[in-house]
């Protein structure tokens, strides 16, 4: 696997540019409003971290939504108790999620394969149930944890006195909503991407890949693989915590649903959709799923009719009747169909598709082995 530092730099530069310019090139797609852009960045971070555990190390975890939730709740409590400045919230959220990941990872990694997955699933559901009904003084159950005017906010009240309105999250005065919030998340996304890239290229990353290709063999050579796997787990937990904290930064309400196992399932799908083991794949997958979720579910009969108005009337009605099932309230159907199609035909995700297209364009005579799970990612991604 050839390492090409200049190519990596080019990739990083290209990625940074694409991310920072998102409000511009997303506009024609109808995705340029701040909330969606923030979600792209945040779930991109989540997916990158998850990919380190799943794509590089080969452990499928269904529990990462719990870390996302823990990060969010910690961040909101930081807002309530300390200050509305986002720095402590982000740091605390990430740290606490990392500790939680350490605890859960230590127990779960005693098993591997499907047992590991079910263990993480069990932990995730436990955490969700606890957050939902048992720990309601901390999490406020289903309604979600909110900021009120009368929160202690020790640091803020010490500097500026008690607040007269419900304050906004801010970075030293710059409000973290709207586009500024997106740019904050985007910068962190680029940093996260860079760190993931460095991990993948490092000897540590090679060790993780070795765990994935055959852990038993690795153990037989005398290497203790457990600490590496645990480190990968904790790193992905830190990423998840960061994503959760950013969710709270851009929208200071932490609901319990983000801890459900189906939310974990969502990040699995994002990673696989984009391309497991690749660098860009998870971010792409996250963007696509969030786009589908927000834009597709907004289509209704009205918009469909407007779109297909160029067809003659009876044809238009027929087409709308069919597509209506796949958008609006039926958008999950599109999601399900997409996964099935993807896993059957394009298991390497979108990146594999792009790879194949690229290869065909370049007309190189490479053996047509499907790039599944990209055990040794060819090229830069």
């Amino acid at each position, binding site marked *: 696997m050839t390492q090409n530092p200049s190519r990596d730099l080019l990739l990083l530069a290209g990625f940074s540019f694409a991310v920072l310019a998102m409000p511009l090139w997303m*506009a024609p*797609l109808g995705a340029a*409003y701040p909330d*969606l852009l923030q979600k792209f960045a945040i779930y991109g971070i989540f997916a990158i971290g998850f990919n380190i555990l799943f794509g590089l190390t080969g452990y499928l975890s269904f529990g990462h939504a719990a870390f996302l939730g823990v990060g969010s709740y910690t961040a909101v409590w930081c807002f309530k108790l300390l200050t509305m400045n986002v720095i402590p919230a982000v740091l605390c959220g990430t740290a606490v999620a990392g500790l939680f990941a350490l605890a859960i990872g230590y127990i779960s990694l005693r098993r591997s394969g499907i047992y590991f997955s079910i263990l993480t699933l069990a932990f995730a559901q436990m955490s969700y149930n606890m957050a939902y009904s048992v720990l309601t003084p901390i999490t406020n159950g289903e309604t979600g944890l909110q900021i009120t005017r009368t929160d202690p906010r020790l640091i803020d009240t010490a500097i500026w006195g008690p607040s007269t309105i419900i304050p906004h999250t801010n970075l030293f005065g710059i409000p973290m909503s709207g586009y500024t919030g997106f740019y904050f998340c985007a910068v962190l996304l680029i940093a996260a991407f860079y760190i993931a890239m460095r991990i993948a290229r490092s000897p540590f990353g090679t060790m993780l890949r070795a765990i994935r290709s055959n852990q038993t063999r690795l153990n037989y050579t005398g290497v203790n693989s457990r600490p590496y796997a645990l480190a990968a787990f904790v790193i992905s937990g830190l990423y998840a915590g960061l994503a959760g904290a950013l969710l709270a930064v851009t929208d200071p309400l932490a609901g319990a649903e983000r801890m459900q196992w189906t939310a974990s399932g969502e990040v699995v799908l994002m990673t696989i959709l984009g391309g497991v083991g690749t660098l860009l794949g998870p971010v792409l997958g996250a963007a696509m799923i969030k786009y589908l979720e927000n*834009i597709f579910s*907004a289509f209704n009969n009205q918009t469909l009719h407007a*779109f297909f108005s160029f067809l003659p009337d009876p044809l238009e009605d027929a087409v709308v009747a069919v597509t209506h099932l796949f958008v609006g*309230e039926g958008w999950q159907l599109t999601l399900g169909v997409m996964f099935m199609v993807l896993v059957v035909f394009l298991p390497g995700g979108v990146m594999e598709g792009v790879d194949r297209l690229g290869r065909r364009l370049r007309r190189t005579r490479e053996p047509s082995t499907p790039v599944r799970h990209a055990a040794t990612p060819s090229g830069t991604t």
Partner: protein
Amino acid sequence: MKDTVRRDVLKGMGAIGAGIAAPAFFIRNAWAADFRNNPGNAKSITLGFNVPQSGPYADEGNDELKAFKLAVKHLNGEGDGGMMKTLKPSSLKGNGILGKKVQYVTGDTQTKADAARASAKRMIEKDGVIMFSGGSSSAVAVATQSLAQEMGVMFMVGLSHSNDTTMKDRRRYGFRHFFNAYMSGQALAPILAQEMGKDRNAYHLTADYTWGWTQEESLKNATEKLGWKTTKAVRTPLGAGDFSQYITPVLNSGADVLILNHYGKDMVNSLRQAVQFGMRDKMVNGKRFEIVVPLYSRLMAQGAGDAVKGILGTANWHWTLQDEATKVFTKSFGQEYGEPPSQAAHTCYVQALLYANAVEKAGTFYPPEVIKTLEGFKFDGMGNGPTEYRAGDHQCLKDVLVMRGAAKPNGRFGLLEVVKVVPRKQVEYDAKMGGGELGPYTV
């Protein structure tokens, strides 16, 4: 270059979105005294309807959406005008709102606070809505109400029954027409005492979220004041499905009334299972065992089937009321969709009309002015009798209906019958109750 290929893939994928998406890039006006999504001189304005389209309340969300579409139709002067004809005092002219045509966008709350907020944000930031409404869960209502306050766009609450929405979590930019748990408790308790006697022991099974908590508290307080005793109150997880493990302890607990603080899917299952366990036929402490369902909905009654016969509860509105406005609305909705409207549909329709009316009366879309107009607004002719939108907490004070499951259901839609229309005076309370503060007019 790989980046170009990637971008082409994404652009191709987004072709559908490009064709349909509303102007995506909202550029805020730079000058002062402006407000978010100011329509300016535009020929139309957009309303946002954030309803549950998936999840346990999807059917109710569907009904709410139908009502909203009907309201938009009537506001634009089409159709038969519906309750615009009966609203008093009305400033509505039937040519849109302030002459601008009314359009709408829809969103899916999925009955989750996170998803609802994301959907509302999309409608505000991308589609430029001037007001948004809808919803079937109090958790969602509270979450979106605070979002409305943060973003400076008015939110007309859909179906939300928890006290918190206009008490602890009240907001200046949120308005609720639907009644709340306290009003239910005040209306229901005297009827219960009348029918079941004052010497009763109640066992509460409560859905474990804000609505369940406040409903249990309100009914508990109201019944205890009349002499009942509360044996126990148990929290059940939302969406539990099988309630047998919670129902079996009831029989031997010494209680002779089971109060199900459940709604939606929970109510369908818990009520049916309680009836299956033979609770309706029991005699405890020498009295017949009774079941009470404090909040009714026709759609859920359809789900529960035979189990609702004879069970008491409350509702905000029912289509069988005989006043002029109800008849007009039921006829209008029925002609459009072939079935009578549910209370969720009714409240959403009314909220849309009330907002439009307030804007017309204020003469501007500027939220602080519209809010001031709506605060303290007294009206009639919307199906609930004389109603006041109280300024202190943005809650509509009006009559409350006590319902009972019909012993002989009258067709598919006549599953519930009105027992009593409890007058407003009996259910009123002080605006300061529950704490909370509305917040500023300008954000």
